[in-house]
């Protein structure tokens, strides 16, 4: 993992931010994360959610190379989850398959993943490439930038009442051939209007 450029905060501040909670974590400055390998609470939750999606969404057997091949979660560009991803990979499994987090350098690498997380920093061009690549494949593309669903993504994270919520683009999921548990669908919320614009709002 690489430290983000232009980060003015030290690691100790980040620890403090985790301790203080969501109010601070929700601020975009902090959301960018510190250089230290400790994830903010928001990305800790998001990492956990990514794992949980694997529990409520079914992948066809053909999506896996073999019976023992891992369940791959791809992170496009930079990895904001830091140690949270490692912890999940160490402790959890999807069925009997181990979980593997991969950092994707190019959109084309997404084809070997089952879930791809697209951080908000992705450029519209790369996002477009990714979404094109995903078409007709059993890949659940999860994003966090405004209007992610509207531009064809499957799941979009957003913050509401200091909680991480998600919206599901049922049409896209169905097109990808991924059955989604009704339990997950009942938990999905429509994204509020300011999360639907193409640019994320400055809050």
């Amino acid at each position, binding site marked *: 993992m690489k430290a983000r450029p232009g980060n003015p905060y030290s690691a100790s501040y980040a620890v403090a931010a985790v301790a203080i909670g969501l109010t601070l974590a929700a601020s975009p400055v902090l959301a960018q994360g510190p250089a230290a390998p400790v994830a903010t609470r928001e990305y800790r*939750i998001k990492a*956990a*959610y990514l794992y*949980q999606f694997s*529990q*409520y969404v079914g992948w066809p057997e053909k999506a896996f190379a073999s019976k023992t091949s891992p369940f791959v979660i791809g992170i496009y560009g930079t990895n904001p989850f830091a140690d949270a991803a490692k912890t999940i990979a160490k402790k*959890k*499994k*999807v069925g009997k398959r181990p979980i593997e987090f991969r950092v994707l350098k190019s959109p084309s690498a997404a084809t070997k993943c089952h879930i791809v997380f697209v951080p908000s920093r992705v450029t519209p061009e790369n996002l477009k490439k990714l979404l094109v690549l995903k078409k007709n494949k059993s890949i659940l593309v999860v994003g966090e930038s405004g209007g992610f669903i509207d531009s064809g993504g499957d799941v979009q994270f957003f913050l509401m009442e200091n*909680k*991480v*919520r*998600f919206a599901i683009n049922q049409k896209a999921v169905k097109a990808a051939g991924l059955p989604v*548990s009704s*339990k*997950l669908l*009942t*938990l999905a919320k429509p994204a509020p209007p300011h999360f639907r614009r193409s640019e994320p709002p400055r809050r």
Partner: protein
Amino acid sequence: MKSRAIQNLSIRHKVSGLVLVSVLLALVLCCAAFCANHYLYAKESMAQEMGSLAEVLGANAAAALVFDDPDTAGQLLSSLRRQPVITSAQVHDSDGALFCQYSKDDASTSSSPRIEPGVTTRNGELMVCRGILDEGDELVGYITLSVGLDVINDRLARYAAIMVVVMAVSLVLSLSLAWPLQKSLTGPLLALADAAETAGEHEDYSIRVEQSSKDEIGTLCSQFNRMLSRVEESEREIKAAHELLEERVEQRTAELSRANESLNAEISERQRAEEELEQSHRDLVDAARRAGMAEIATGVLHNVGNVLNSVNISASTIGERLSNPRRRQIDRVIELLEANRDRIGEYLTVDGQGKHVPAFLAEFADSLAADDRGLIDETRTLAENIDHIKAIIATQQSFAGSVGLLESLDLNSAIEDALRLNATSFTRHSVAVVRELGDLPLVVVDKPRLMQIVVNLIKNAKEALAEHESEKKVLTLRSYSSGDEVVVEVADNGIGIPAEGLVKIFNHGFTTKKNGHGFGLHSCANAARQMGGSLTVASEGLMRGATFTLTLPMQAREPAAETVS
């Protein structure tokens, strides 16, 4: 106390009680066991039911828990509204923090802490807690369902009501069914009891109990009948014996009254004899007294006569002396001198006859002096004899009224004599006489005086006892010797003498008796003094008896100097 009350119940009630208690006990125990079983079973099945419901709900809430969505979980719990039995439900996350909750009354109960998984009963509620697993079989939280036990309790109350009704019905039934049986049991017993009561109250032992059955009660009846006939027989015997006894008592009473009459006659006879004896005794004493006085008078006159002899001689001697012949010669000399008055000198010196006159006168003077001396001596003798007579008369006077005839006697026999004089009145006043008479030497005393004192003291004591109303009247006579004295004590437990009375009891005129004149004890004390002894009294006070003590010298002694006035 309680057991005594049960014991006193009639047999009829006891049998009824037995039936009642056994039926009630069986029913109550049955119902209690049934209710307990039902309660436990109902609780268990409810717990199971709630457990499966909790599992279903938990599975549905797992996703909401995982994605931290309490609203959705809350909506899930709201579906419990269709189960009115459930009063509240809570979902806690895996850390034990309350995630969401549901309450039937919408009264949001304060976030109750998570309880341990399993079944708990608290505050009248059954609480079932189950863990919630996510799709990866990982524990993500807990769900708790609370059910009010009111449902079960209501059902139990209904059962209890049914039980009471059943009990009442079965009691009535069992009592009415047991009635004939009880009657057959208690009927003969009650008849037996009635018969026993009649027999006891009216003393009628002729009745018999009907023997209705051949069981133990029947045996009891026949035994009772046998006992009654025995009692009847023995009562007849007793009655006969009683009549015989009465007859005998009557006979004996008649005999006794006859004997009593003759005894009374004898007693009056004896009294008369006693009176006669007393009269003759008095006469005798009078006679003796008169005889004694005559004897004394004779003695005195004899003594006086003797002295009078000497007086007579002295008087004769004086007379002889006074008729001396020389006294007539002096008259002749005086005549001669008268005749020779003129020549008296010549006559005396010259005349032959006259010359002898002076010598004669000298001789005459000598003779006269000798006569005078003799006369003086005789007169003295005469005076002495007259004094002697005076003394004899004085001695007689000093003994006047109480002649001191001293005799040697046994004091105890004197006491016995005195008691004998009062014997009848002792029995009349039921006075017990106690004698504590010691061995005494013979004493020389004036017996009548002594008797006067002792009889007086005993009479006094008897009167003191007669006035006292005590149950036990005791007169104690004591005699003993002490040094050269003998002592007689007369003690009683009669009315006693107050302290102020002790001082003047021997005074002349002092008395406590209605008819007394206060002379008896006074003269007794004087008599004791005259015999050289003393009479004293001691008493602890009114109603506490008195003791009189007579002390006499063994040898007669000169009377004490002073007498009590």
